[in-house]
């Protein structure tokens, strides 16, 4: 429910606080909002393929089959719909990102998973390209979201 109203318009990284994520369409402003065309999105992080090392990721991206490229593009699209907020230093929340084990800084961009675990955006995005589960609780990352995006 909470996620339902955030879908599709929460791509802004510099929102004033994470409450803004919950206001739905009010937070739309300028070109930062709305789903971006996935092919023009930020360069792919280097770690999509378990076997690739940083040095040949560029090469492997061009050698990928069209099918794989579409799959990855869809997954990027899916991941982009998970809300981003800024870390507010609330002591009830995790203090560090369990992926890199570095403490969050106040106002740093964090991505929220449906289970409400938070991570650095670049850390969790790399992980979600490999596995659509929360690294902390292994909860699937919104199966409903997944099916609706992977089948369309």
């Amino acid at each position: 429910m909470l996620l339902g109203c955030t879908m599709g318009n929460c791509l802004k990284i510099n929102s004033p606080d994470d409450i803004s994520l919950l206001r739905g369409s009010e937070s739309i402003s300028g070109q930062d909002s709305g789903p971006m065309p996935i092919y023009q999105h930020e360069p792919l992080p280097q770690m999509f393929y378990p076997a690739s090392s940083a040095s040949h990721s560029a090469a492997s991206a061009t050698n990928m089959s069209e099918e794989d490229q579409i799959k990855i593009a869809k997954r990027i699209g899916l991941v982009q719909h998970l809300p981003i907020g800024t870390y507010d230093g609330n002591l009830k929340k995790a203090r560090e990102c369990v992926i890199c084990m570095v403490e969050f800084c106040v106002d740093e961009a964090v991505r929220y998973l449906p289970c409400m675990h938070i991570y650095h955006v670049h850390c969790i995005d790399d992980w979600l390209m490999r596995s659509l589960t929360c690294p902390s609780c292994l909860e699937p990352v919104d199966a409903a979201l997944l099916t609706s995006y992977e089948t369309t």
Partner: protein
Amino acid sequence: MANMAVSRIKREFKEVMRSEEIVQCSIKIELVNDSWTELRGEIAGPPDTPYEGGKFVLEIKVPETYPFNPPKVRFITRIWHPNISSVTGAICLDILKDNWAAAMTLRTVLLSLQALLAAAEPDDPQDAVVAYQFKDKHELFVLTARHWTNAYAGGPHTFPDCDSKIQRLKDMGIDEHDARAVLSKENWNLEKATECLFS
């Protein structure tokens, strides 16, 4: 990205060093090289198992893609266990393969391996011979695992009968470990072991 692997391992190293388990001497970890890509772990055999009293050394290799991919772990200390190869030390454990999650750490891996020693899964074996013995001749399995713990991991229980059979094969020019491996596989039947070695 390699930077994330190294900085995480450094933090995890501290975590293990501060952990309760290290105080109890139940797990241990040390560096093998300066690049933080290879470590050596050690776990104590859990109480009330054939591995009790033994110390088992593990080779831990950290991939460049860590923590997005699991560390590569194998037993250096020889061990008789259905989910660990008695020949190579390779481990069959889901969290070291498909069920790895980025929130897992060296500490949780070592503790999971300790749990594996306490609860084998013979239906998902790494070593088919051991798994068969575990299911079919469980008493012999326990004896063999205890004997290996004594021979390779410093376990307290000695088995004069096993030792004398191994000695018989050694007298025939067989290497001690090869003799132990064949006898273990042949359920300590000296005749069958000899046949297997010389046929």
